[in-house]
């Protein structure tokens, strides 16, 4: 856990990350040594053969064919070694061991949703058991995204209308970053999350309570508000981000771009989440993604309850 990684690489936390790092450092050191030789030769020649008089014209040497061919030969050998190794690591990264725990990942602008084998839908963060292979079967609702966990050294694009998959086995229990690495629009850099690797029992416990458990609707709503990245666009303290702040929203008079107006009651809040384009608040871009319409009803209820409570 205290592992903060090396100069180049972040913490290494999956069963394959060590191998990726070894391969990285192999290529890194081969490159560095050759590079230093090239630069060294360059510096030496510049000094050794510097022009001493304007009229000097050195005698042309004929090139050494042997030198040329031996560099080509040597580089082919090096390249094949690195290639074969890279290929082996790639296969490992690509093929999930049989019996992996499967989680369905749904990406949409700009959040991650995880569906567990028991049907639980959980947004934002991915909870997994540690020391057990986990296979993610991924799909996008809209544009391309990419699932990246630096500490695991894995990455896979997420594509609409097609499943892609990636697997990993967390070797330590800790919390790791998830980044979206395929440009997906305005909030691309806000499409973040965490992977939380639990010991198996703790994970089982978590899963049994993931649906909200015995949280109050407001508390559950608050959690969902963060998990669904609502907070990347909406503040709860009155500041303007991309969308209006939630503070004091409930019960206030709303003015729309269409010229109409309405009082923000429960129905208004619900509609604003499931069909944001229907009534666009005046002075704001229609930038809220439509994908929240697919949230389960209990989660929508909790969100509405939470927004009501933000005063």
């Amino acid at each position: 856990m205290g592992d903060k990684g090396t100069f180049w690489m972040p913490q290494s936390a999956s069963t394959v990350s060590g191998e990726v790092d070894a391969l990285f450092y192999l290529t890194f050191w081969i490159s560095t040594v050759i590079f230093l030789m090239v630069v060294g030769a360059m510096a030496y020649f510049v000094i050794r053969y510097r022009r001493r008089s304007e009229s000097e014209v050195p005698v042309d040497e004929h090139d050494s064919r042997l030198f040329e061919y031996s560099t080509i030969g040597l580089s082919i050998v090096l390249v094949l070694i690195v290639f074969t190794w890279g290929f082996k690591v790639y296969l490992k990264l690509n093929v999930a061991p049989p019996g992996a725990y499967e989680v369905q990942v749904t990406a949409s602008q700009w959040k991650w949703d995880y569906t567990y084998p028991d049907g639980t839908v959980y947004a934002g963060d991915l909870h997994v058991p540690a020391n057990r292979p986990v296979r993610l079967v991924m799909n996008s609702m809209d544009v391309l995204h990419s699932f990246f966990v630096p500490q695991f050294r894995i990455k896979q694009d997420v594509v609409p209308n097609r499943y892609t998959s990636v697997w990993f086995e967390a070797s330590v229990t800790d919390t790791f970053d998830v980044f979206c690495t395929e440009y997906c629009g305005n909030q691309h850099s806000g499409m973040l999350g965490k992977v939380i690797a639990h010991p198996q029992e703790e994970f089982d416990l978590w899963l049994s309570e993931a649906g909200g458990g015995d949280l109050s609707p407001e508390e559950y709503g608050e959690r969902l508000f963060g998990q669904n990245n609502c907070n990347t666009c909406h503040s709860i303290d009155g500041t303007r981000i991309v969308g209006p702040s939630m503070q004091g929203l409930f019960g206030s008079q709303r003015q729309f771009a269409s010229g109409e107006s309405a009082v923000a009651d429960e129905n208004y809040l619900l509609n604003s989440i499931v069909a944001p384009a229907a009534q666009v608040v005046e002075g704001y871009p229609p930038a809220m993604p439509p994908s929240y319409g697919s949230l389960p009803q209990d989660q929508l209820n909790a969100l509405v309850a939470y927004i009501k409570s933000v005063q």
Partner: protein
Amino acid sequence: MSVATATTEIPGKQVTYLNHEKSIKSWLLTLDHKRIGLLYMSTIVVVFLAAGILALLVRIELMSPGRTIVDAQTYNQFFSLHGILMVFLFIVPSVPAILGNFIMPIQLGAIDVAFPRLNLASYYIYMVGGVLVVAAMLLGQIDTGWTFYTPYSSRLGAPIIFMTLAIFIAGFSSILTGINFIVTIHKMRAPGLTWNRLPLFVWSIYATSIVQVLATPVIGITMLLLLLEKTLGIGIFDPALGGDPILFQHFFWFYSHPAVYIMILPAFGIISDLMGTFSRHEVMGYKFVALSSVAIAFLGFLVWGHHMFVSGQSAVSSIVFSLITYLIGIPTGVKVINWVGTMYKGSVSLKTPMLYALSFLFLFSIGGFTGVMLGVLGVDIHLHDTYFVVAHFHYVMMGGTVVALIGGLHYWWPKITGKMYNETAGRIACALIFIGFNVTFFTQFVLGTKGMPRRYYDYQPQYADLHALSTYGSWILAAGLFLVLFTFIHSLMRGAAAPSNPWGGASLEWTHTSSPPSPHNFDEQPIVTHGPYDYHHYYHGDGQSAEAELAPPSKA
């Protein structure tokens, strides 16, 4: 030493391509390859300035996490516009259109390119494309990056079609220039200028032209397919219509990877010429350097899939693409060794152009090695779409092509303008660029391996220090680039008159033309009796001075 001056002298003033006609029209409608080269130069410099300022703004925004100067939408448009301008309107045309146009025909001993009118047309087609690109950006608020991946881009609808159309038009300029140069090199070489005696700059322009002609149509086809999809609703790339977004990536990189070679091959040519002249030594492995450019040009068509290792393409394709990528790395590496080897037993002079050539060797090697690292399948998974990639291609495109271009501009500046520039200012600028560039982009390698994704407006606090450092570096880099601009402007206004061959070059533009050249380049048809890097011949040819060259030699 000067060769052609004696013959073109009219009392007090020499007739050159710059002063033989003076009206604006004589510039805008000129058929002279040299003047067309200058038209390109002025336009391309403006594009570079604009795209460079956008880059500085992007860096300032990234100086600290969260909002620094602009909001996410504006930032996304900034980096997209930066990429689109730099790639399609700056770096693709840069070396061939400026130096290829100006220098290559002279190096051939020709009075112009094969089709001067077509050459002028290429320039105006480029202008039309350029204006449309800028219009599409400003009107369409395009924020897709320069890669236009579907389905995100196809959702933007009309602006994106407008944009691809604009790039398609600009592409035509590239195709026509390519054809023009290929014919010129085949048909207009001076007597005695065999393929083995071509300056390596000509070879590289030749290889580049082949790629331009073969690859550019593909981006046109891609545009056409996007258009069909949008207007007729045929599903090609958009999954909502049953299309395949990955297909778009295949099309895109089938053009854009070879385009990488359009961007770098001409730089190889410049470096070969610089290394030769400033080492006063034959370029080591001439044949290898010449032919490997052509080989790279062809192999470059077979590696596009290395941009797609994590896209969901099949594992088998990834493996094949990875292997071919390595194979391309080998001739490139050997070239670097040949350039360094050129100095061996030479006479090395550290004039400004040579400093750029040495910077190129340093920076481009780093770009090349990191490219090979990215080609390693298991490692690329981690590094793909992070700042490591951003740093890598800036080392190749900026540390490679741009540094070579600036070096080449210094080298041929006396020839082009007839003026010398301030050597000290030139060297200081080169040092600033070298330091600033490394501070800016080397930090980005570390950001990348640590996991910082590219095209991020906001980022986690652990990346803040390196981002700030990178931003400071960009200011040093900018200072260096402005100093270059200043040095050149100063030279135009105050520079001393340049001799016809200030560096002691041995190719025709130095030995057989005045600085600046006369309107038709040569006073009489030059006849070539030796290689482009035969400095012996130049200094001691026939046991006499270089002037002996002008008269058809009795015997080589």
